């Protein structure tokens, strides 16, 4: 067969090395990446290996275990924080149409935005709820594993160059005002208005190892679980199920489906296309 894959390394051996690396990181530092999807994780390891001038995952393991600064660099590389305001505008349209009317019946609304990254999704939701007249009675708990992104989320800044893209998304998402009403610009940075932060709490929370911390009417977790393997996805769905009100709403990313998890039977689709589900059992 292939003459030992001509310089690309044995894929099975590399998987073993990754398992050992993740086990070592977990035992030594307590960070648990063992249940993540290897194919996407592997590419980020390759990038770190290139930056560290290492040629095998085993070499990376050795350096990471003996050098805390290298672990820090690896953590940063493993954290994918890509996000945008009103990413997938149609999702927010669906949220307005299908979820907002349900929320109107509640005197007080608790929302969990899990894996909020730098806060763009959280503030998009805050704007939407404000326009629907629901924000004043809402509290959004926005969490992420990465405290560096949470700090940025709390500041509520974004680069001015993004403003026109975000304004377009906002309009496509059914925004009823002007996006520019929600921020002020100073020295190349746009800062979101105070009001949008008033009812938002940012906190560190690890979906892999931390427990449920409240009962919510809405949980949004988008483009986070794609980085997890199936068994871990099932566990996190268990956490969400336990954290949702009996008729609570779960919102997932554009290409994530409850259908592929063990929890399918506990939800009914509110909008299948936009991945909005309602807990029924």
């Amino acid at each position, binding site marked *: *067969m*292939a003459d030992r*894959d*001509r*310089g*690309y390394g044995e*894929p099975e051996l*590399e998987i073993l090395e990754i398992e050992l690396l993740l086990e070592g990181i977990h035992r030594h530092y307590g960070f648990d990446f063992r249940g993540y*999807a*290897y*194919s*996407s994780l*592997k*590419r*980020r390891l390759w990038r770190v290996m290139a930056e560290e001038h290492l040629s095998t995952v085993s070499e990376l393991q050795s350096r990471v275990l003996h050098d805390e600064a290298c672990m820090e660099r690896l953590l940063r590389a493993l954290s*994918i924080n*890509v996000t945008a305001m009103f990413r997938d505008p149609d999702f927010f349209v669906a949220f307005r149409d299908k979820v907002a009317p349900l929320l109107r019946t509640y005197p007080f609304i608790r929302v969990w935005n899990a894996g909020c990254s730098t806060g763009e999704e959280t503030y998009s939701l805050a704007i939407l709820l404000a326009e629907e007249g629901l924000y004043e009675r809402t509290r959004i708990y926005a969490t992420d594993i990465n405290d560096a992104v949470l700090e940025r989320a709390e500041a509520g800044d974004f680069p001015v160059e993004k403003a026109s893209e975000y304004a377009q998304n906002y309009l496509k998402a059914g925004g009823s005002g002007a996006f520019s009403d929600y921020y002020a610009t100073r020295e190349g940075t746009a800062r979101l208005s105070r009001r949008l932060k008033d009812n938002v709490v940012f906190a560190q929370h690890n979906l892999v190892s931390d427990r449920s911390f409240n009962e919510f009417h809405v949980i949004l977790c988008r*483009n986070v*679980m*794609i*980085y997890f393997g*199936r068994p871990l*996805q099932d566990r996190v769905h268990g956490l969400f199920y336990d954290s949702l009100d009996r008729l609570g709403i779960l919102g997932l*990313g*554009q*290409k*994530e*489906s409850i259908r*592929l998890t063990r929890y399918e039977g506990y939800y009914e689709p509110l909008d299948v296309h936009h991945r909005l589900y309602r807990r029924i059992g």
Partner: protein
Amino acid sequence: MVGRVVAIGGSWGGGAALGRVLASLPGDLGAPVVVALHRYPGASRLAEQLGRHGPLAVADAEDKQELWPGCVLLAPPDYHLLVEGGMCVLSIDEPVRYSRPSIDVLFESVADAYRSRAVGVLLTGASEDGSAGLARIQARGGLTIAQDPASAECPIMPRAAIEAGAVGRVLGLEEIGEALVSACATEDVGVEEGAR
């Protein structure tokens, strides 16, 4: 024994070229087909349009969806598609060579997951995406095919892969379908070639 997988990449003109390849494939193709096309985020009806060209059903891939023989699953707009353990894995990691989806990302994951059972097909495009991925498929003993640059709407992408030495067979669009059918009917190109 796990069967083969076909991975197809295309950029400029890739949608039309893929449509012609799909038109020449039978409804009982014995392997899953995964596709990365550079597409506009707004092109949400691409799967539906491609599905009209031939008997195989085409859909955007969902995260952790399982592959089955005869499926045609596309990398969704603005997501990378990878394959692992017979399943689709999506990511929104940074674009690679300015592209998300990236053809290299798909091909490289397929090369590692399927090794000599992988078939990579690179179609027309104005980019150099796909060459590195094809090289990896080839190094692992898989079959690599490029659309004949002479027939491509934009020859840059297949030509780059050919010049990189990553291409086993250069074929016209009509012949690609045939080559895929016969590759999917045999278990392993490595073995097949070794037997010659």
